[in-house]
């Protein structure tokens, strides 16, 4: 029986919240997180509060995703609050796709100091700020941090290399972002910066509603066209090499590992 402060398996539970403008890769990132850690045995609930995005929402990939009933900001805020209560009672990890713009989640964090309140209940909040190579992509981070409404100690600024479409290298394309004052201020407060690797055929995978494992294995669903010749290889390369390297850059306590299957390095030796 969970005691309300720990996940069912005895570790602190995590709430990973993806934030950012529309179309910066919040859903792609959370889709990757959930597939990757569920494959390793982690118990993760999927909360999809992104009501603007229907075609590629988390509900497309995870039939068990929870969605709020249609309503206004206040309804979504209430729904998120009820999901947080359930999480505290049941002790699983969760991811929240808050959607872009001013959302029910924004309304909630404006209303109450969510991070501190959840920490008291044993839930650590991990902020995943998704950005593309445009300066304006950091406005979100800037406004959340300036208002003090939501800036968890555990913050990852995720630069999405998949948004670099001009043929430039991600290093060059993101040059304005590294120098941005809001990013540097967030890093000084403890945020980490990572680059989410690009998958050139991401749309081919997501449009078919395939998991990355399925796409890597060249699976075709009934009525679908097969992917291009090398696309399964591209997905396999990304899924089995680049994505593990990407998660290696996270502090381990910020990732939703299956605590029962994990032991510390000291216990291993």
């Amino acid at each position, binding site marked *: 029986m969970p005691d309300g402060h720990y996940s069912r398996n005895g570790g602190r539970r995590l709430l990973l919240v993806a934030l950012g403008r529309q179309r910066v890769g919040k859903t792609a990132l959370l889709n990757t997180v959930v597939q990757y850690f569920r494959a390793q045995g982690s118990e993760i609930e999927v909360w999809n509060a992104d009501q603007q995005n229907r075609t590629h929402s988390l509900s497309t990939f995870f039939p068990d995703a929870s969605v709020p009933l249609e309503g206004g900001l206040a309804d979504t805020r209430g729904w998120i609050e009820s999901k947080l209560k359930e999480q505290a009672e049941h002790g699983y990890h969760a991811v929240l796709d808050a959607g872009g713009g001013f959302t029910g989640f924004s309304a909630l964090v404006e209303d109450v100091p969510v991070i501190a309140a959840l920490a008291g209940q044993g839930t650590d909040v991990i902020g995943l700020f998704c950005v593309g190579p445009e300066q304006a992509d950091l406005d979100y981070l800037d406004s959340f941090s300036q208002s003090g409404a939501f800036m968890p100690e555990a913050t990852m600024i995720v630069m999405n290399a998949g948004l670099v479409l001009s043929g430039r290298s991600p*290093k060059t394309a993101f040059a304005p972002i590294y120098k941005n004052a809001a990013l540097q201020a967030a890093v000084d407060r*403890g945020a980490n*910066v990572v680059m989410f690797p690009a998958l050139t055929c991401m749309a081919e995978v997501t449009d078919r509603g395939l998991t990355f494992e399925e796409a890597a294995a060249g699976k075709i669903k009934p009525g679908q066209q097969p992917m291009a010749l090398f696309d399964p290889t591209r997905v396999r390369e990304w899924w089995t090499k680049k994505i593990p390297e990407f998660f290696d850059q996270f502090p381990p306590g910020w990732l939703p590992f299956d605590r029962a299957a*994990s032991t510390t390095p000291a216990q291993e030796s």
Partner: protein
Amino acid sequence: MTDTKRVRLVRKKKIRTFGGRGQIYSWLRTHHAAIEPLKDIHLNLRAALAADIVEDGVTEAADRRGLRDRIWKSWQRVCRDVAAEAAAAKPKRVPPSRITPDWRPTVVPPRPAIPAQQTASSSSAIVPSGGTSLVEPGMSPRVRAQMEKLDRIFAEEAKRRLPR
């Protein structure tokens, strides 16, 4: 009571012993050839391996705590050892040289000196040849550390790419 039987991931074999290595290592090494083709495509490889290892009565696996992680670490060690062994076993055939005895490598002229400011700002960053560091003067130690980390990642990426 159940009438279904779990399907094993790999066929049971007599376990070879590898001096100085544990039982899980020996089990994985013995079955390496069968596991290798599955490693990139199996949905839950570690759990399936754990089930087979437990079924085979490996005593090191009796303590299920952290078993899947222990298996995974041992598996990585097995892969390294198998690769090292294969490399060592490869016959080192030296083909007869067709290069004339008086051949000398072309000497590349030295690059122009890097401006002093850039040298100072990127002294500890690992930057690909011809690339520039993201580290800039005036960055705080934390920002600098993050930029150096990104420099290393980009350098690794650049190594994988063909020259343009």
